[in-house]
């Protein structure tokens, strides 16, 4: 006799439980901005140091210097954009009719 083909039981959980999203560290905006500014400062000073080293012939890795400059530029651009948004929001608040 040929046994009928039984359905393959798929073990599905009755309710899908999602892992709780990891909470971002509770830091306020001001400390984040200060940290970013510090970060930009570090990157700019690193790039500045590398350019000096290149100028005096210590660091011969030209593309590393250019990459550091670009990283510094991008970080600065990010902070500038954030500042623009914050100032925009502040202007909106100040123009509110009371």
């Amino acid at each position, binding site marked *: 006799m040929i046994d009928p083909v039984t359905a393959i039981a798929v073990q599905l959980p009755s309710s899908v439980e999602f892992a709780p999203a990891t909470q971002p560290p509770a830091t306020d905006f001001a400390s984040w901005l200060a940290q970013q500014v510090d970060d930009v400062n570090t990157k700019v000073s690193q790039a500045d140091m590398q350019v000096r080293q290149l100028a005096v012939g210590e660091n011969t*890795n030209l*593309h*590393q210097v250019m*990459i550091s400059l*670009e*990283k510094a530029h*991008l*970080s600065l*651009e*990010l902070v500038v*954009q954030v500042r*623009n*948004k914050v100032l925009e929001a502040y202007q909106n608040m100040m123009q509110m009719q009371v």
Partner: protein
Amino acid sequence: MDISSIFDISAAGMNLERQRLEVSALNLANANTTHGANGQPFTPLQVVVRSGLTPFDAVLNAVNGGAGLAGSGPIGEVQTADVPNRQVYEPGHPDADTNGFVSYPGVNPVSEMVHLIAVTRAYEANVRVFNAGRSMAMKALEIGSGR
């Protein structure tokens, strides 16, 4: 910023191409060196590239959804190339053997030139990747400023 991992990978590629160019330059500069520190003619060098991606990195990247590949760029190792010396008949040469033959390094200028072209193009490709990542980041910073 996670776009900086692209920069780091491109930097690893550029470092590798710079190293390959250095080795080519050394080979071409020593193409006629018949007498090294060990009394033997110069041995041509080559760069053997291995992937910096370890299995652990692969697992970690699979868990992280493919992000964070920085630090897994190519790693170049300088090794001696196993090529026979070029024998030139110069009886008056100080390094000539008893039969009057001088052993020159087996540097092939033609293949070194082709190598130079390949290295230059590969370096340019890495710079292009870097610029693409940079323009993506700059474009992302333009979000919301079109008013």
